[in-house]
């Protein structure tokens, strides 16, 4: 079987993660600068080595427009050969890396920083109060729908999850077990926002409701911070400071239609591109890092990659998501539910850490091949990466 020309052509050579969570004193552009500096340092590269910059602006970038140009100017980058401000929601991170790899393989640039940053959280006010949490940061109304009290993605996803429970018998316990398993991983990740907070299934059931069927711990965190990766050719990556993380496969899938009806993510389509390119099947992944805006998203994405038959996601997570040491290693840093929320960059960063063997107390023993997903909107956009520490 002939190899796909993109398979292993490029690698992630640098990873930069700023402090995450309730981190104040900077704005989104500032966090982006910090993340790129850290990623350059990690790779052993200089600013002048970059000739590409892709940016996914978080919500707090607002209407600044041309985010990648804003960040280029802030970083003082000259003579870029590739740039774009991209937004597929939570699918952007893996899509940026794919775009970078395609451009590098095509010879139009050599070394690309892919960046996400956001600063939706405000410092606590002197009068008390939390200065804005999930609801305040991600509030948006939609005209007629807002008139019915239908606000934001919590409500949108809740309607979809409820349909899944109705059609397939998915239970509240199934959702809770995703949260519990990911917290067990976070308890071993000192960088996780909820590192020090144990979570039992009882704790989960007792936590306050947000939008039924979602409890507080079904919903991802909100984080200030920045995260950048540097993509370059496999050849160049091998000369740099850190072990290369090779991009074996990439794909996207954007299904359209009503997610409350399809109950399906674009993973069903993206895997048809990514898995054959990478020459892997669903049984080949040592580490699985899935976009987890909600517990439900993990469950449905596992179904759509084929880890279990459609509709069996609830029973699968009850059986196989057990945290460190047993079952399938999914969201091994705690994910966006328990570690930090940098849109699709959270699963990307954890895959890089695991494949390099830098996972410390949470390191998965066999860590050759990782699956990474991104998901935007309400199962609206999807991107897949297959990454490996092995060149081929």
């Amino acid at each position, binding site marked *: 079987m002939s190899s796909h020309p993109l398979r292993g052509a490029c690698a992630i050579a640098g990873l930069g993660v700023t402090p995450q969570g309730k981190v104040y004193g900077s704005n989104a552009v500032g966090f982006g600068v910090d993340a790129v500096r850290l990623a350059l340092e990690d790779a052993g590269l200089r600013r002048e080595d970059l000739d590409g910059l892709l940016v996914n602006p978080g919500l707090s970038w607002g209407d600044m427009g041309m985010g990648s140009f804003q960040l280029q100017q802030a970083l003082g980058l000259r003579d870029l050969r590739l740039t774009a401000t991209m937004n597929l929601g939570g699918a952007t991170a893996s899509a940026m890396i794919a775009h970078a790899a395609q451009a590098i393989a095509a010879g139009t640039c050599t070394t690309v920083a892919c960046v996400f940053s956001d600063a939706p959280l405000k410092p606590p006010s002197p009068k008390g109060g939390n200065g804005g949490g999930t*609801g305040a940061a991600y*509030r948006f*109304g939609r*005209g*007629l*729908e*807002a*008139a*019915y*009290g*239908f*606000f*934001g993605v*919590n*409500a949108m996803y*809740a*309607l*979809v999850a*409820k*349909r899944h429970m*109705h059609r397939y018998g998915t239970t509240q316990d199934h959702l809770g077990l995703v949260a519990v398993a990911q917290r067990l991983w976070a308890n071993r990740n000192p960088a996780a926002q909820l590192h020090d907070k144990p979570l039992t299934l009882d704790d989960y059931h007792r936590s*306050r*409701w*947000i*939008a*039924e*069927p979602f409890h507080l711990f079904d919903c991802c965190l909100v984080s200030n911070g920045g995260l950048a990766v540097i993509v370059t050719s496999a050849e160049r990556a091998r000369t740099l400071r850190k072990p290369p993380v090779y991009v074996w496969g990439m794909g996207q899938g954007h299904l359209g239609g*009503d997610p*409350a009806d399809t109950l399906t993510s674009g993973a069903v389509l993206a895997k048809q591109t990514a898995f054959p390119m990478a020459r892997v099947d669903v049984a080949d992944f040592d580490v699985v890092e899935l976009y987890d805006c909600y517990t439900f998203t993990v469950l449905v994405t596992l179904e759509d990659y084929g880890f279990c038959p459609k509709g069996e996601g609830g029973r699968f997570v009850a059986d196989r998501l057990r945290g460190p040491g047993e079952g399938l290693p999914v969201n091994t840093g705690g994910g966006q539910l328990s570690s930090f929320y940098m849109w699709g960059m959270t699963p990307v960063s954890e895959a890089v850490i695991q494949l390099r063997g830098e996972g410390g107390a949470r390191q998965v023993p066999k860590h050759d091949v990782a699956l990474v997903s991104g998901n935007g909107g309400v199962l609206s956009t999807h991107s897949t990466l297959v990454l490996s520490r092995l060149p081929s």
Partner: protein
Amino acid sequence: MSAAAKPVPEVTPELASFFEAASRHQLVVQRCTACGALRFPARAACNHCMSREAEWAPVEGRGTVFSVAVMHQANHPGFEAELPYAVVVVELDCGVRMISNVIGCGARDVTIGMPVSVAWEKRSDEVTLPVWKPRQ
């Protein structure tokens, strides 16, 4: 002091016909004049045939609850007095789905598959909204 008012949706040009009909307690949805497909909310083109031509067509105010989310955060002061409240997707007998509320029963008594019929809630002098009540 009375409870805070719920938000009044803007009568945009694309929804003007919808609100005009609602003021007469007539439920309407968009109908593609090329292929006849019904749709809601208003869209720029038909999902089936991509035609840009559409009209507003009366439909029967009957349906079932397609999905439900019970909201425990108000996000707008107008909903605080009703917490928790249910947001539903109603699937009309004509096949179109719309976001709405169910009145006349508790938020947690709303179930998927529940038969409902339309009712009308006057939100302001200009805006009356379709809501839904359990149907026997």
